[in-house]
């Protein structure tokens, strides 16, 4: 009785939280995306598709395209960095491995906003890196690192890398190393073993990690803002600007809905591939 009351309470309070702070605001966003703009009260209660029509403009499509490229690039770089790292991590002695995992996770106890500011301090014209390089005499005038595409990539990869490492690490850890013995026994070279055994069997981790990097990379607006300046407009920045700068709530809402749909699409793909990996059946092996 007490147990079930506690259960009802904990589930109920979580549900209430989600409803108040996620569902209700999102219903408003969807609602606003179909309303007319009003200079005084932000939206006027009149149905229109103008919000979406405006998104068909080349500006927004370019923003979308650029966001996708940036998110894909970030995912690719993270994957290339995370996979070997996770692989080495699994094979390290226990103590060292735990320390490295901790070192990777510790920064996440700090707000990512603050960490992005830290990157700004590193990259600035009179920042730490430039000061050091000038002092050593390697360069004679400061490099312009801040407000470049590279800085944006560095910032995104730095922030999102652990989300790639952890799922891949888990999937490599679950790998049955006897399968590698079996493959070698059957004449497979290292290359064959990697591409035919290790890669397919760790694919669930790769897909999970990629999803967890790609989706936030689409929406993170403050990293391109701080590190890329005004040059790189992403969907996230676009939405932020519509609400806070332009004051065009219907267009901002419509863009939010589109972003959500894109994410849902990718989540669906992820769901399909993970279900396939599951029926591929690693768990059933004795």
């Amino acid at each position: 009785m007490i147990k079930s009351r506690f259960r009802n309470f904990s589930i109920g309070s979580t549900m209430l939280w989600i409803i108040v702070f996620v569902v209700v605001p999102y219903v408003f966003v969807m609602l606003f995306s179909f309303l007319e703009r009003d200079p005084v009260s932000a939206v006027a209660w009149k149905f229109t598709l103008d919000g979406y029509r405006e998104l068909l403009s080349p500006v927004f499509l370019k923003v979308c395209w650029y966001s996708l490229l940036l998110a894909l690039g970030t995912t690719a770089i993270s994957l290339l960095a995370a996979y070997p790292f996770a692989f080495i991590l699994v094979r390290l002695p226990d103590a060292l491995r735990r320390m490295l995992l901790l070192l990777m996770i510790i920064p996440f106890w700090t707000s990512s906003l603050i960490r992005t500011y830290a990157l700004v301090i590193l990259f600035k014209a009179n920042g730490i890196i430039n000061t050091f390089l000038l002092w050593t005499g390697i360069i004679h005038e400061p490099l312009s690192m801040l407000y470049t595409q590279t800085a944006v990539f560095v910032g995104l990869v730095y922030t999102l890398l652990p989300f790639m490492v952890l799922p891949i690490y888990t999937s490599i850890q679950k790998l049955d190393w006897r399968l590698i013995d079996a493959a070698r026994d059957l004449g497979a070279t290292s290359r064959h073993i990697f591409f035919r055994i290790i890669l397919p069997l760790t694919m669930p981790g790769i897909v999970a990690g990629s999803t967890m990097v790609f989706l936030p990379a689409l929406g993170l607006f403050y990293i391109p803002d701080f590190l890329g300046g005004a040059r790189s407009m992403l969907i996230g920045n676009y939405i932020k600007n519509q609400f806070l700068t332009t004051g065009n709530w219907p267009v901002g809402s419509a863009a939010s809905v589109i972003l959500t749909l894109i994410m849902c699409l990718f989540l669906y793909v992820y769901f399909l591939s993970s279900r396939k990996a599951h029926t591929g059946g690693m768990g059933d092996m004795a």
Partner: protein
Amino acid sequence: MEKPPIVCLQGVTKRFDDVKAVDSLSLDIYQGEFLTLLGPSGCGKTTVLRLIAGFETLTSGEIFMNGSRLNGTPPNKRNVNTVFQSYALFPHMSVFENIAFGLRMKQHDTKAIRGQVMDALDIVKMAGLEQRMPHQLSGGQQQRVAMARAIVNKPQVLLLDEPLSALDYRLRQEMEIELKRVHRQLGITFVFVTHDQEEAISMSDRIAVMNEGRIEQIGTPIQIYEEPENMFVAKFVGEINVFEGRVREVNNGSAVVDIHGEAFPVQNRKKFGVGSGVKVLLRPEDIQVTVEDEWANGEPSLVGRVEEVIYKGKTVDLIVKLHGGETIFVTQFFNEDQENVIYREGQRVHINWLYGWEVVL
């Protein structure tokens, strides 16, 4: 076996940190034989297999195959294949792809691969299941696929690492027969690792009994069972009763041993001298039990009391407590002219055996 051995291990030692898993072991394996490495867990039998397969590197010693030195040759360059303990089938590949894996590593003719895979499936009686995924198969079927995946590569030597240990009793007996059939059909050399002495005895041409990284005895199942060379082999392979005795007199090839004051004539192959302490070993089925009332002759015997009668259908097992102190285990077969012999708990019985059925160590 005059032919040169196909695999030859010479003074092979494998050390893991401070532990000697295999200790200067030498072994010749001949073309076409079914050789079993039998021993308790941790005796080094699997390590020997992994050394032959190339998964482990030798600490010292040498392995030859067809006369050429194999040290340092990686597993993918050795003409041996392994059936792993828990099969290690690739979970993301169908039965067909699992079996074709080894062939794909070496050749590219898809049509030829298909034919060979189908042949292998036929041999293990799995035709028609090639599109299944490993997790859709029963334990016995997975076992068959693991076999097919190895034999399709036509290895000179097939290594089997406790392949039956994950199966239940009935399936294990069925697979024992299957393995023997495949062995006969292919004519390739099998090196089989097991801790199950019944499995070893019923399947092997030769058995190497291992203990603590060494071979205690190597021989045919009959030699291992009937003429164990030491106490370890005697006790590890089958049930055995041990009587402590002392040699009273020695004759030509035989001796008289005193056990609890009774003088038993025994064979003296190991040439024990008068006065030396010996162990007389007897298998449960080699002991004769006679109830007191029917004991007419004056031959030497040990007297005891039946403690337990276990009816087994084909046989009856008796646990007999001897007056000398030992508790022994006896198996009696029902025999036509003794039909009325029914043992009861508490009965006084005489124990003896036929000259030559004993082993003296």
